[in-house]
């Protein structure tokens, strides 16, 4: 699903965020990306999302070399990925339903289909009863779950999460991780960037470790999910 081949990213100010990073993530696999703050976790996810382009090397996502994707096609590419960021990136003046519906609206899905799919996604994250509520009135944990519902509503093959539990208490964080595992069991490839080793310690998935832009470990705990076996 994801293949990084000698990927280097140097920002315009000369800061080397990633140095010769190599790793592979198979279809249906779930992995954690760890490292200290500034290790390059977010940059790596941004490169997969085409929010950044790598300076050298090659990235292949879903069998597609990212350097071949032109600017105008980035939007279509992103529709095949679900994204969850630490800041949930939700429209504050809209309802949970409207926020979750966005990927489907952009993909041109029929209106009647949108409603049923949004409700299904919200149901999955336990927020169906709050679909009509404004985002501002929801708690931080609920906002995070709305963000997850939005990431899965269009049934992406790949789910990326950047510190999805960064602002949440341990109980809620465990709940969110549980959700990711459920999606992974349905065949979705999941890559989660986190520095919370305590949270992922008991989960049996591969851990990719970045240190000062280098991939220092790519498979401490290898465990593919049942669906991919």
């Amino acid at each position, binding site marked *: 699903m994801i293949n990084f081949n000698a990927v280097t990213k140097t920002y315009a100010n000369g800061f080397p965020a990633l140095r010769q990073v190599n790793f592979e993530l198979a279809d249906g696999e779930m992995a954690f990306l760890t490292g200290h703050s500034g290790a390059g976790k977010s940059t790596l996810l941004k490169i997969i*999302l085409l*929010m950044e382009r790598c300076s050298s090397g090659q990235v292949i996502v*879903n*069998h*597609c070399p990212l350097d*071949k*994707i032109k*600017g*105008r*096609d980035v*939007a*279509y*590419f*992103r*529709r*095949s990925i679900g*994204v969850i*960021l630490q800041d949930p*990136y*939700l*429209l504050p003046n809209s309802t949970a339903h409207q926020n979750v519906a*966005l*990927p489907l609206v*952009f*993909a*041109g*899905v*029929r209106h009647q289909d949108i409603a049923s799919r949004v409700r299904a996604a919200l149901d999955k994250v336990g927020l169906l009863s709050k679909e009509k509520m404004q985002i501002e009135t929801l708690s931080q944990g609920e906002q995070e779950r709305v963000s997850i519902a*939005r990431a899965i509503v*269009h049934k992406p093959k790949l789910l990326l999460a950047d510190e999805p539990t960064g602002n949440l208490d341990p109980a809620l964080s465990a709940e969110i991780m549980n959700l990711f595992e459920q999606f992974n069991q349905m065949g979705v490839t999941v890559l989660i960037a986190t520095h919370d080793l305590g949270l992922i310690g008991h989960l049996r998935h591969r851990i990719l470790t970045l240190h000062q832009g280098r991939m220092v470990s790519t498979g401490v705990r290898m465990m593919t999910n049942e669906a991919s076996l």
Partner: protein
Amino acid sequence: MTQEKNFISAKKWSSHSFIEENLFRLRQYCINHYDALRQSAHELRQTQLGTLLTFLMIGVSIALPAGLWAAVHNMKGLTGNLSHNAQISLFLRMNISENEIESLMDVLKSNRSIASSHYISPEEGLKEFSKRIGMQGLEDSLNDNPLPTVITIEPKLVGENDSELEKLTVFLRNLPGVDNATLDFKWLKRLHSLLIIGQRTVYALSVLLGLGVLLVVINAIRYLIQRYHKQIQIYQLVGATFPYIRRPFIYMGLQYGFWGGLLAWVMDNLILLLLTPSVRNLADSYGVPFHTPYLGMLTLWTLLFIGSVLGALGGYWAVNSYLRQQQRA
């Protein structure tokens, strides 16, 4: 390439027939445009004062060249009428006999370049003169009438062909009994030249102020983009295309231009309403028929069209440069 199409196929959701699919797409396209228009109108209502100020700025920018154009257009109309009335005045010798005058009138009547001629006796001339300068009874206070007999001639040749008029004047000046012949045309020529300068100034101003409208819209849209920065980021993150993001801002620009154009039309007509009495007096003093020069419906549609196009272009430019900047960053 086939792999690239894997994700591009995300665009193709259903397995409906070709016609159904295209009808659905067309409907979706119209809905997207309608939503963008509604969203942009909502946004303009949200920022009432800012929107009003922008409308006014655009209105003034369009009103100025439009008003000047109307003024020049109307002046051209007036001078157009005047040029048809270009006159040659023949001042006859003092003590010219009645017979000489009659034979001169016959010569004038038979000339094909002359549309009409009008005889003014010295007595009539003095009466007219005293009336114009507001000194009633002037003719009684003078022992001798100093004015010569005058024949005013309206040539058939019209304004533009002034060399023909000059030739006719020279011909008339050399007729027997004629002391002098003057062509009341040079001032008209000067006025025409001034009007051409005015017209070209209007064109130059139109280009400059059109550019001004464009800049005002770009500035206003850039400000709005800053407000919507996060929303645009969210849209981009979840797969919104550039046209989808651009659309509401283009509609905002279009609405700025549209309402600015309407305001310009209203402002110009108000100014014309204020100026009409003075212009009518001026026209009357030259004996030129004057019609109220309000900007009509055709001008309104033109201003709305120009305003909307400039606004939409400004909106497109502003949002596109922002998106490109984002792409580069």
